[in-house]
């Protein structure tokens, strides 16, 4: 028997959410399949959804591979996920307001002060400031993996600017164009409300001084950024301007954008650049991407910045361990979604355990992302493990370790036909005046046989993610 949970099967029976896909795939001749795959690729290329990978060189217009076999959740499965995700997003925001305010959770001894106040992502510049509606992280991307029918684990939280939502929307568009029958036969919840919900969420956190319909913009580092496509895609669907730092300037108590008709005031900035770059007067003085004086306007209530500067302290991989504590502390609830057991190499006991069990564990850098700088013990050679061991010993505080999870699989089109491949899930939770979650998310799939790394920068692909209506 396969040791991994295949989301389509229970033993030899097809699980209910996938029932109709079974007929669909068995009725599809190989020739038609390649035709459809080519059609999908041509559509993606025509729309211009491409993905440049940092530091890889090669084709700047590479496509993220799209797999046509959808991933499906039943209404019941989703409703539990939804409650768990919203619960987590609420707790993370409560934590952020707290640690930039009185720090009750630290005083109560539920999380070590060092982990919060000495964290690189802790932003002293916003201490004492409460953003509009008490929201720091307006778009929370929560990475989930599944190991069994009812076993979901949160792998990490993304409280700053999680990317990938354009793929959630485009994957759906492409599937609907190519396989309209599938959508007639299955009752699939739509995801296309997302851009409107995002716009409403951002408008709902307009600054105190805004006394009219707020002007929302998206701030991008520019067209050379690998996620630029997504920035312009969202701006287009939301009907807001896509600006760069050079398009904005501060004058007195407000921020303006340069337009052909002269300056126009901006009220809410959905920024897709890091804290360190948004204001050279407050953060990195060498930043060419930011707007000098932005933080002063922000702190005096002249503009809202989403996510709020400082939000990163909640999604640090060491702070992650304490999210279940946050849920209990702020909400008085038990966590609906589990954390992956995590050992912190900074702790002496944990370090010993990690070094003993290295070949069985996944080790990650505390501030790493994109699947870089990590060790997947069971997939590595002895030499690789020893090299990593040396790095951990040299700087234990930089690493955390987790057991290697048996990631679930979903059937995927491969050269030989259809085969199970490992997947994860990133839903996008919106937090403003209300908390909203569209039924769906981005499913990433590790296309290489046996691989557990789903990052698009390392050979991962994407799938359409369905939530079935009741």
């Amino acid at each position, binding site marked *: 028997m396969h040791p991994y949970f295949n989301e389509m099967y229970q033993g030899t029976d097809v699980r209910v959410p996938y029932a109709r896909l079974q007929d669909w795939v068995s009725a599809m001749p190989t020739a038609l399949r390649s035709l459809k795959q080519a059609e999908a690729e041509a559509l993606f290329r025509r729309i211009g959804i491409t993905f440049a990978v940092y530091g890889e060189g090669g084709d700047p217009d590479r496509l993220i591979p799209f797999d046509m076999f959808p991933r499906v959740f039943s209404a019941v499965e989703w409703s539990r996920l939804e409650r768990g995700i919203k619960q987590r997003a609420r707790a993370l925001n409560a934590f952020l307001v707290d640690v930039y305010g009185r720090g009750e959770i630290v005083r109560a001894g539920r999380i070590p002060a060092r982990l919060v106040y000495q964290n690189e992502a802790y932003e002293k510049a916003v201490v004492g400031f409460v953003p509009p509606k008490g929201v720091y992280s307006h778009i929370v991307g929560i990475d989930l993996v599944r190991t069994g029918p009812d076993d979901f684990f949160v792998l990490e939280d993304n409280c700053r600017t999680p990317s990938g939502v354009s793929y959630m929307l485009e994957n759906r568009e492409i599937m609907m164009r190519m396989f309209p029958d599938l959508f007639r036969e299955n009752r699939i919840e739509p995801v296309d409300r997302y851009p409107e919900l995002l716009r409403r969420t951002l408008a709902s956190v307009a600054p105190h001084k805004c006394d009219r319909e707020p002007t929302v913009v998206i701030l991008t580092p520019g*067209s050379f950024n690998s996620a630029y496509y997504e920035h*312009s895609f969202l701006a287009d669907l939301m009907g807001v301007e896509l600006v760069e730092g050079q*398009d904005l300037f501060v004058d007195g108590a407000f921020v303006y954008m*340069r337009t*052909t008709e*002269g*300056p126009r005031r901006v009220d809410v900035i959905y920024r897709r650049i890091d804290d360190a770059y948004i204001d050279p007067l407050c953060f990195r003085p060498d930043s060419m991407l930011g707007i000098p004086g932005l933080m002063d306007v922000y702190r005096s209530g002249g503009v809202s910045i989403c996510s709020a500067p400082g939000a990163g302290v909640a999604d640090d991989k060491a702070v992650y361990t304490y999210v279940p504590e946050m849920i209990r502390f702020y909400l008085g609830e038990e966590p609906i979604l589990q954390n992956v057991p995590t050992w912190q190499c900074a702790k002496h006991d944990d370090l010993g355990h990690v070094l003993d069990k290295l070949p069985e564990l996944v080790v990650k850098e505390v501030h790493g992302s994109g699947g870089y700088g990590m060790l997947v013990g069971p997939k590595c050679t002895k030499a690789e493990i020893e090299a990593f061991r040396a790095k951990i010993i040299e700087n234990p505080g930089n690493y955390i370790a987790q057991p290697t999870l048996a990631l679930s699989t979903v059937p995927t089109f491969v050269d030989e036909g259809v085969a199970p491949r490992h997947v994860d899930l990133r839903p996008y939770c919106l937090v403003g005046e209300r908390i909203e979650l569209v039924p769906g998310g981005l499913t990433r799939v590790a296309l290489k046989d046996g691989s557990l790394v789903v990052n698009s920068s390392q050979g991962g692909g994407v799938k359409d993610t369905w939530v079935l209506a009741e």
Partner: protein
Amino acid sequence: MLSRTADNLYWIARYMERADTSARLLEVGSRISLIPSAHGYRSEWDSLLQASGMAEGFDKKYGDPVQRNIESYLFFDRDNGSSVASCITAARENGRIVRTALTAQVWDALNVAYEELRALERRPRSELQQSRLTEWTMRHTAMVRGAIDATLLRNDGYNFLNIGYYLERADNTARLMDVKYYVLLPRVDFVGSGLDNYQWTTLLRAMGAHRAFHWAYGGEVTAAKIAHFLILNPQSPRSLTTCVAGIANHLGRLAKAYGAETDAQRLARAMLTGLEGETVDRIIDEGLHEYLTRFIGDAAGLSLAVHNTYLSRARA
């Protein structure tokens, strides 16, 4: 509209128009290379390169104006900022930056041109005929232009695109004429000779206008007729009058939409009034070269005014 967005739109148009000019030059250059050099027609090619400001770059890298070099330089060479490949890539990059200001059809036309260009670049050169390259370019520039005209909202972005097209075209027309008169004909005794007529015809060809010219005028090709056709005739799609009228029209629409007249509108109107009151005789009296030099200067001044007023929009 963001000033930077307007700037990107303006440059999409300029680059597409420039790609079109380079493709026409490619055709003319190729024709010239088929003529025996003993007859001295080679200088035509040099002058065309000079007109488009590309002579130095070509000499440095290639030297000999043979077919393959001409194709490389005018179509494929990324070092040449005015090559078809450079222009289409730059236009598409500008389009990618402002996708939200374009319709799906316009973006599609730009993107398809770029994707096909990349496919062309991968093909062995022996499979690519020059005439195909020129036709290919003209087809794609026309498709982008057509998509703009057929699908884009008639808003400020549309005006900036058109201003870009007309400014680029006016500049190209004036420069090509200027070189013809100034560089090719330093000696008065050539005027009216058979050689002269051949060279003028080459010029018309470079602007894709030689058939239109014959429809409009008929009979002998004379310098006066050509000057009238390319400078004053409002029927000619490339004449300076047509271009300046286009610029004035779109600037006028901007002024109306924004409720503010600026230097740009005043300059454009003054240029148009000047052209409308002009005659070929007076132009030849002043000296074609002098006249064109003045025009190129005025056009640059207008282009700067558009830039300062709308495209850079420093804080006001």
